[in-house]
């Protein structure tokens, strides 16, 4: 029998009091795709960081191909053939793919960078693994899914035989995920070993050979994927039964709380606007979900409503007209916002949890009294949110970045819900969140709606939109192209609309005037290749995506606008 490619034995890692890995054993065979699951804070990233040499275990051993190894740095692990794509990206947006790939391992000729050799080597890899990108593309112009492939290229370029991917799919659309999996399957067939961290059960079933579940730092289950049921995985993760595909009862909408009329946001390049004459409304006690392939203007729409991007058109909250106002005024008028990018926009990773949770509450009582901030009140405020939303953290003084990804999300959600604002804008609320916590977050959002608040939800997970929303709008190329009430929202029709083929019948029949008008136009335009679209809705969507440079415009656009948005 051949030796396993990776064997971890008795790995223990403590952070102060907290036992992040508790005698973890993990065996991964060569050429296998091994999924690693577990709740937020279960210790997945910690374990992978140990294998990658970023963290040193307090106890336990690592063996590669049967040879014991000790890594005191990532450089050593890389030399031993291990590569890791960490949670979140580490790319230079303004540089071309080649530079990103060779960074830190540049080929040289007579002491100088050998650019031609670099480009050739990268092109060769791109070709061999059938990636859809050109070495000269600027990373910032690539859609998120393709950026992920740049990360993988980086590993391959360094001749990694063991690839660790920590939640690579969290930011990908379903079609991009499928593309990534194709690449991973090829790599595995080629003799590479893949360790994949993910929260999504269907991904585990789709791509992995073996699955291991961690809970509270311990292995609770491991075995071949084919012999493991979804329910079994879910309960190994959470220690209880989880209702996986719950559809929540509809709300009881009241008066209009958020009204958007003719909102238009300029695109990054001249020509097509990022948000094109969008009108919509959300009523109190209602969740309106926006479905769409990422990059079709959802992020810009929310940013414009929040005041982070300059826009034309009108936004009203209650009776109050918000256009022309800055972020602070809009928030004061009754907006709260859970952004898509929690690491940079939604939080300050280096700052204490207390400070992160106090931000936004720092100009009014009880945190402020007689013009001074009370540190006791700030602490109580943080403790209350941590407690109520079940944020797992070493304590309120812990820096935000020491929280696991999902717990950061819970903290931000908790902070924004605590505002009790009449209108909540929420983007990707459960991205990177474990399935147990997904249910918790969904319950919170439903409770928030039932308390009479209006919620505008943007999510790349169609099942999430379908489960939560009372009404579903579909965005395509910056426009709202279709609208479905909860009772008529079926995945097929929505998928079709997401791909640009909004059928006249659905949109025209049930949509309110504004959406109906836009939908009619698009349906007409897309009419020619409708048959094609019906055949493979998501596949088509992905092609649109890949050919479209507007993948992730919010980041840069928000920066460009600076404070000028006001």
């Amino acid at each position, binding site marked *: 029998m051949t030796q396993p490619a990776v064997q971890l034995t008795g790995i223990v890692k403590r952070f*102060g*009091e907290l036992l992040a890995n508790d005698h973890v054993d993990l065996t991964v065979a060569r050429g296998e795709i091994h999924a690693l699951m577990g709740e937020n804070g279960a210790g997945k*990233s910690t374990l992978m960081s140990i294998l990658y040499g970023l963290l040193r275990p307090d106890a336990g051993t690592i063996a590669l191909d049967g040879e014991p190894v000790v890594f005191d740095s990532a450089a050593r692990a890389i030399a031993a053939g291990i590569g890791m794509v*960490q*949670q*979140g*990206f*580490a790319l230079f947006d303004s540089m071309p793919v080649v530079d990103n790939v060779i960074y830190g391992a540049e080929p040289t000729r007579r002491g100088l960078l050998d650019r031609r050799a670099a480009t050739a080597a990268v092109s060769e890899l791109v070709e061999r693994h059938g990636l859809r990108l050109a070495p000269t593309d600027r990373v910032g112009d690539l859609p998120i899914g393709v950026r992920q492939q740049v990360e993988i290229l980086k590993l391959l370029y360094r001749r990694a035989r063991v690839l660790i991917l920590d939640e690579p799919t969290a930011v990908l659309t379903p079609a991009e995920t499928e593309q990534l999996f194709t690449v991973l399957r090829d790599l595995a067939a080629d003799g590479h070993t893949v360790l994949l961290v993910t929260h999504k059960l269907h991904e585990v079933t789709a791509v992995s050979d073996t699955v291991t579940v961690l809970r509270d730092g311990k292995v609770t289950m491991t075995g071949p994927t084919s012999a493991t049921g979804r329910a079994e995985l879910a309960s190994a993760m959470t220690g209880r039964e989880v209702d996986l595909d719950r559809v929540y009862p509809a709300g009881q909408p009241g008066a209009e709380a958020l009204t958007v009329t003719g909102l238009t946001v300029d695109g990054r390049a001249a020509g097509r606007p990022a948000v094109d004459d969008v009108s919509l409304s959300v009523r109190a006690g209602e969740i309106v979900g926006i479905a769409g392939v990422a990059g079709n203007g959802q992020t810009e729409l929310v940013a414009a409503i*929040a005041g*982070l991007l300059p826009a034309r058109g009108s936004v009203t909250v209650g009776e109050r007209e918000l256009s022309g106002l*800055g*972020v*602070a*005024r*809009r*928030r004061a008028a009754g907006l709260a*916002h859970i*952004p898509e*990018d*929690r*690491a*940079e*926009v*939604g*939080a*300050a*990773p*280096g*700052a*204490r949890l207390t*400070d992160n949770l*106090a*931000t*936004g509450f*720092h*100009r009014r009582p009880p945190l*402020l009294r007689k*013009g*001074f*901030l009370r540190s006791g009140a700030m602490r109580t405020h943080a403790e209350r949110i941590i407690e109520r939303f079940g944020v797992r953290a*070493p*304590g309120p*003084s*812990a820096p*935000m*970045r*020491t929280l*696991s*990804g999902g717990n*950061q999300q819970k903290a931000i959600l908790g902070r924004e819900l605590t505002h009790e604002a009449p209108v909540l804008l929420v983007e990707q609320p459960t991205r990177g969140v474990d399935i147990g916590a997904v249910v918790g977050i969904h319950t919170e959002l439903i409770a928030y709606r039932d308390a009479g608040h209006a919620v505008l939800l943007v999510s790349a997970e169609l099942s999430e939109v379908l489960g939560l929303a009372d009404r579903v709008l579909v965005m395509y190329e910056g426009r709202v192209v279709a609208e479905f009430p909860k009772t008529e929202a079926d995945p097929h029709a929505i998928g079709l609309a997401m791909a640009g083929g909004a059928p006249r019948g659905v949109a025209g029949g049930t949509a309110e005037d504004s959406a109906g008008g836009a939908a009619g136009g698009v349906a007409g335009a897309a009419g020619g290749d409708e048959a094609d679209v019906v055949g493979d809705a998501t596949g088509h969507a992905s092609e649109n995506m890949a050919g479209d440079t507007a993948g992730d415009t919010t980041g840069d656009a*928000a*920066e460009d606008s*600076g*404070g000028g*948005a*006001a």
Partner: protein
Amino acid sequence: MNRLGRWRGALTVGVAVAAALVLGAILLAATGANPLEAAGAIVTGAFGPDGIQDTLAYAVPVAGMATALAIPLRAGLVNLGGEGQLVLGAISAVAVGLHVPGPLGLVAALVAGMLAGGLYAAAAALCETRLGVPLLVTTLLLSYPAMSLAAYLVRFPMRDQGSSLPQSAQLPPDVRLPALAGNGLTVGLFLIVAAVAVYAVVDARTPAGFEARVTGWGPRFAQYAGIDRPRTTLRLLACSGGLAGLVGAIVVLGFPYRFIDGALITPQYTWIGLLAALLAAASPLGTLVAALFFAALTSGGFAMERETQVPRELTAVLQAVLIIFLAATTGLLRRRRSAA
């Protein structure tokens, strides 16, 4: 956990200082001096009964400038125009002090210094927020015309008629800050202490200070939270320049009670202050401690040169070594870790 972290922080700083001192000792020994003797000379020179006055006199402007530059640095904004604001504050204070008599003149001179520095820094801020020129560039570039203007003024319109030096006339006796010692140390010391105290309280306990810190943690997070960046920039720069101008006023309102061209630039108040602020990550107390430390090292260095013939430049080397060690251990040079 937090206490542990702080303790460990203190320990790393201690280790860095010790390591720098050892390296300094080796350097001293290499030049043929007795390191212990030299170190003793520095310490007595800095803190001995005579030395302490010089240390304090030097520490007042250094600590003042360090705090002035720390204020915007807290929000991640670097004010490189400290020299211009300092000089402009000083020349304005002298101009007002020479024309407004009596104690009123003293107050007016201080206020004028503050206003001049503050408005000038605010202009640099506006260039960024309105015209989009980076603050680093606007502050630094605006510094030069300010220094040239002052140089021109004391050579021509404001020149002391009885002297051939580029210096202003002396301020009348009632427009001078009461002296605490003969070396230029005045009650300006208390003004700077008060400024540091105000900065510490505003930083830790007020919404404005909190917002500055939030901006420093992450500009996009700050924008998302509704903090108005242009307004924050303008306010912080105005405070920064105002304090720098006040420092300039305090210096010229002490011995020798006049503006001498170059006298505010040669001692490097601004750059040593900026270093102190950078090393302390602009934390109010840390900045003060770092500024005092550098001031002591500098004035001790003069004493060492007098006593032991070891060139004073060696303390500059020591200072540099120390900065590198501190920067390396406190993570100033470390790349920000990506979120996990």
